[in-house]
């Protein structure tokens, strides 16, 4: 697998940019809106990493733009139900198909390979439903898309986990207060077992420097340094 930590750094940079844009656009969001903004910016950041033109990235970007326009619209929940209702009609054709299916079922129930094949088809459909844009993928590219998607999704989860736990620990340090910094560092270290420590360390150092430098001037310099790293 390619360089995971560079993927994570790229994701972190883009995600924070997106977060800032969202948060500066609309002040005083409620909890739900803020959560949606976080998820949308994370998905958008994930889809724009690596500059590859995979199907799931395109589908995710399309989905994000739709979700963004629907963010404040409560009435959109009625639409999906309407579509579902159309598909489940029991026309005479459907009933005939069901009858034929029961006949086949009786014949080939003992056919083990048939059952296995059906299982695989069922699971493939499930996988397609989980991948963004999966419904329009053919099986040839499904596996490659899945692998790429899983790699990016893992990076997204790990970066988010790192940021959220670091922020939580930073704001509410576990007692004793002085040992809080040390506990925080060892927590990060054990969580990442020395791998990808660069990312977590950079977050930690940023937060730590901000905390210890109480003078405005020193804080400003550090903040500028870290900002230049982020951008």
């Amino acid at each position, binding site marked *: *697998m390619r360089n995971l930590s560079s993927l994570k750094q790229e994701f972190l940079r883009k995600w924070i940019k997106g977060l800032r844009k969202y948060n500066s656009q609309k002040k005083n969001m409620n909890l739900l809106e803020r*959560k949606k903004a976080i998820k949308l910016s994370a998905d958008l950041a994930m889809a724009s990493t690596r500059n590859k033109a995979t199907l799931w990235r395109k589908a995710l970007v399309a989905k994000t733009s739709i979700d963004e326009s629907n963010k404040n619209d409560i009435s959109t929940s009625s639409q999906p139900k309407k579509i579902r209702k159309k598909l489940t009609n029991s026309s005479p054709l459907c009933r005939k198909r069901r009858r034929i299916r029961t006949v086949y079922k009786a014949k080939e129930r003992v056919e083990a390979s048939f059952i296995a*094949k059906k299982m*695989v088809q069922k699971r493939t459909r*499930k996988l397609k439903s989980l991948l963004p844009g999966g419904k329009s993928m053919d099986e040839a590219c499904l596996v490659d898309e899945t692998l790429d998607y899983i790699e990016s*999704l893992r990076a997204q*989860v790990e970066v988010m986990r790192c940021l959220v736990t670091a922020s939580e620990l930073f*704001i509410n340090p576990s007692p004793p207060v002085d040992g809080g910094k040390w506990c925080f560092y060892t927590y990060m270290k054990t969580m990442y077992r020395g791998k990808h420590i660069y990312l977590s360390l950079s977050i930690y150092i940023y937060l730590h420097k901000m905390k210890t430098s109480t003078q405005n001037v020193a804080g400003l310099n550090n903040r500028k340094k870290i900002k230049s790293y982020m951008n």
Partner: protein
Amino acid sequence: MSSRRSRSRQSGASSEITDAQITDLVAKLLRLIPELRPSRSGKVSAAKVLQETCNYIKNLHREVDDLSDRLSQLLATTDSNSAQAAIIRSLLMK
């Protein structure tokens, strides 16, 4: 065994996942998903591989959702009295 990987090939249409693709998927995901290791028979069924992959993706989605929840709560509850809160805000909001 109903769960053996070898299946009768149909008319060569690409409407099904091939065994080679399943092997490829297993090889790449072996590290991430321990359930994919072949058990006593030495073979992993295609259905099981797809099932475990789906479960893994679902778990990741759930974790993203949970983390977004926590982050939004963190940003909402940090009031202006603590210096740490101000730092977090300056990091994540401009």
